[in-house]
């Protein structure tokens, strides 16, 4: 347990003033979910992904998504080897414990779907052969807001594969000053020491699954989901998969708080990150998914 705190503090040293987002990202990984970081360029999305992978001691690959990226660039390709006289498979960057899919919405849907299928199945099938991906396997994708030029927005079905979507936002003045004064981030990343073994992370994941969610808590989650479905404020309600995502994320958050049971505050903490990319608010009174999630929390009483 202390190790995960160490990881958190290591990452905090690099990404300044974003404690909540770092915690959410860790919870996402502990809940075995994939993480989507969405924000304008230059607020530290890639740095966060680097820092997480580095401090967790996981094998790390980065794929820069561009509009000419092909599925083979992600998954790998079989090349004829004259030495052995047969085709040999050259695994792509996806065969890694942490895959950073940078600017995922700059690639064409074809390349996107290669990544997203791997995310769901934890395996890839190339030329008729199915290959398992390593465990743990995380995808941290970053994307620019879809209204920016040259983007292919992820369809809703693929957005749904990400357990959480977080936004970093600009740092506050204090953090920004520290950033301006401090060392180069790249140097800091290079100095970063892994604080955890992959086995320990897997154990943490198992432990998270054991966190107790009482009937009262599940009542609350169901009330939230039902409200999102029945209320006129939202164009589409939360799916059962989203409800399941809420439970997993809630457990991970409770574990990060060193508890063996989850409380409503855990649900409230993770709900904006879990639900905002799955909810669509109706009308002009509400703007954006994050506001929709906040509204949902405000409207539903804890049973």
């Amino acid at each position: 347990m202390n190790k995960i705190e160490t990881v958190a503090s290591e990452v905090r040293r690099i990404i300044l003033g974003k404690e909540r987002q770092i915690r959410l990202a860790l919870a996402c990984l502990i809940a075995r979910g994939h993480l989507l970081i969405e924000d304008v360029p230059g607020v530290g999305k890639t740095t966060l992904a680097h820092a997480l992978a580095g401090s967790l001691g996981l094998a790390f690959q980065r794929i820069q998504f561009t509009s000419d990226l092909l599925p083979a660039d992600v998954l790998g390709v079989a090349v004829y080897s004259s030495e052995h006289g047969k085709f040999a498979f050259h695994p792509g960057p996806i065969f890694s414990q942490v895959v950073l899919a940078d600017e995922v919405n700059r690639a064409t849907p074809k390349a996107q779907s290669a990544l997203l299928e791997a995310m769901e199945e934890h395996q890839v099938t190339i030329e008729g052969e199915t290959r398992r991906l390593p465990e743990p396997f995380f995808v941290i994708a970053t994307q620019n807001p879809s209204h920016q030029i040259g983007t292919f927005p992820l369809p809703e079905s693929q957005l749904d594969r990400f357990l959480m979507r977080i936004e970093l936002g600009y740092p506050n003045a204090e953090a920004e000053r520290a950033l301006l004064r401090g060392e180069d981030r790249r140097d800091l990343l290079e100095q970063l020491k892994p604080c955890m073994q992959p086995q320990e992370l897997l154990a943490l994941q198992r432990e998270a699954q054991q966190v107790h969610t009482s009937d009262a808590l599940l009542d609350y989650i169901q009330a939230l989901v039902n409200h999102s479905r029945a209320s006129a404020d939202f164009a589409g309600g939360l799916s059962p998969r989203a409800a399941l995502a809420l439970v997993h994320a809630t457990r991970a958050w409770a574990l990060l708080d060193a508890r063996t049971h989850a409380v409503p505050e855990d649900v409230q903490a993770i709900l904006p990150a879990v639900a905002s990319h799955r909810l669509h608010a109706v009308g002009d009174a509400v703007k954006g998914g994050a506001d929709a999630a906040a509204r949902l929390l405000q409207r539903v009483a804890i049973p």
Partner: protein
Amino acid sequence: MISPAISLRSTVWLTLALALVSAPHVMRLPWWLSGFALLMCIWRLYLARMRLELPSRWLLMVMVAGGAAAILLQYRTLFGRDAGVALLVLMLSLKLLETRTLRDGMVLAFIGYFLVITNFLYTQSIATAAYLLVCVWLITAAMINLQQRREAAGYRTQLRTSAVLLAQSLPLMVVFFLFFPRVQGPLWGLPADAFSGISGLSDSMSPGTLNQLVLSDEVAFRAAFADGAPAASHRYWRGPVLLDFDGRTWTTTARPLRNNIELERTARAVRYTVTVEPHNRRWLFALDMPGSLPENAIINADYLMLSRTPVTSRLRYEVESWLDYRIGADASPAALNRALALPQGFNPRAVALGRQLRAQYGNGPAILDGALRFLHQQKLLYTLQPPLLGLHGVDDFLFETRSGFCEHFSSAFVVLMRAAGVPARVVTGYLGGEYNPLGGYFIVRQSDAHAWAEVWLENRGWVRVDPTNAVSPARAEGGLAAALPQGANLTRSAFVTHPVLRQIGLTLDSIANAWNQTILGHNLEMQRALLYRAGLDDTTWRTLAILLIAAALMVTAILALFTLRNRPQQDPAVVIYRAFCGKLARAGLAPREGEGPNDYAARLARARPDITSAVHAITERYVDLRYKKISIKSDTYENFANACDGFACSTLATRPA
């Protein structure tokens, strides 16, 4: 806050529901208005479908002014029932065109409910009630649709919810039906134009009056006999008595009223209840001869029962008649003279025949028999399509065309009798009626309208004579259809002639009668009778109001109890914790909407450092009970409750100023 926009689906729903509510009015509205309203509905749906802008306010203003002016031209007024409904339909169809938001939609729905009521101003039949119930159901569903505005919730769910709502309101409806204070007469005073175009007997008779009326199958009244109905030949329902003849038309002027019924009766009386349909006249029909008067009824010199005001709503009265009677034996010479008057210069041959009868037979009864024998010998034809008659109508009928209807027979007979010096008069009314074995009552229709005669004989007074009987005895026994010759072109509805349909018709009529008697007839008296039976003598509106409120509250309470009982059992920890929160709320520290217990405790700690430890202890316990995997012991909740109880006394008392 700006009301959210109304969706296409809701627009369609609302428009359809409103069109259905207005549909029964289409027959009563001028054609141009119905067409206009339909056009507006189609236009609105088109705009919604194409996502186009609604017309501008100015255009609507112009249309409102134009429509109102057209209605004013059509009806010469904007008030009253017909013009009012027309105006309402016009406004509704235009309101549709400025319905943009949820709020507008709700306004429309409520106008729809109001339109439901306006339909009852015209008819209150079961079919209308059933149709309007469906309309209420649809409007309610449209309102639910407006509020939910979710594509996911299908129209089936909304219809079901609407039906459940209506079903839940049923007990309240019964309570209001039974106890809502009734007023004598319609609640809001029906507009004056409400009873135009009602067919029925009139207070004058000329050739062609009755044979038009008898083509109508409309019900005039229904009568239920207490014990045993008299034979068909005795079922003469007395209507207006016509005394004055101008050569063509029989009329009567306002007759003096009678203070008491002078009736020499010789045999048994029959008791029966009559439910008369509105006919906008004051006549109350009774069998010859009424011996008792219903409440609020009067009787005139000709033994015609009258209501004090025109019968504009269905009226029920109980009356007693004597089938063997003697009236007017001591009639005044003036009255008898009036019953002898004949216009100068009309019907010379009939007058001559009358004089000849007088000379031949001498006394009244013999003249009567002679006249009837003459009619019989003339081989007169009973027909609904009598040929046109000339200036001397009675002469033409008796000696030339020799075919006519009961009005010709009675008119000719009375002229003959008067010419022979026997006082006589025409009586109009109804004869017979169809027995409905299902409901055990007689249906008397407009087609049973009849005219007969009364002659005054020495020592016997006014005696009923039916000259039609002399020609066609079947009329009294078997009704109109039996009296007409074979193949007579009598276009009756299939519900009267076809055996199976007739059975269905009778069944429907008995249902309609039950509806009239129990639902529509639930007036002040019936309400009083009901309460009296329940042991309540005092039935002022105040008592009723108290009863109404009490019963409504009771029904609501029972329904609420029933609903709440089906709710899942509440966790005792929640109940205790809510009480704890309640105490803090009274100190101005209520939990916020959706605030978790730990967050609440943290906020309390910041606001009131003095109670921090107690709050934390309770919150921790509560969170453990609710969210931790713990085993509940017998005293777990008791301990928690005690902790919360203790909180109130010890801590809040020491609140810093």
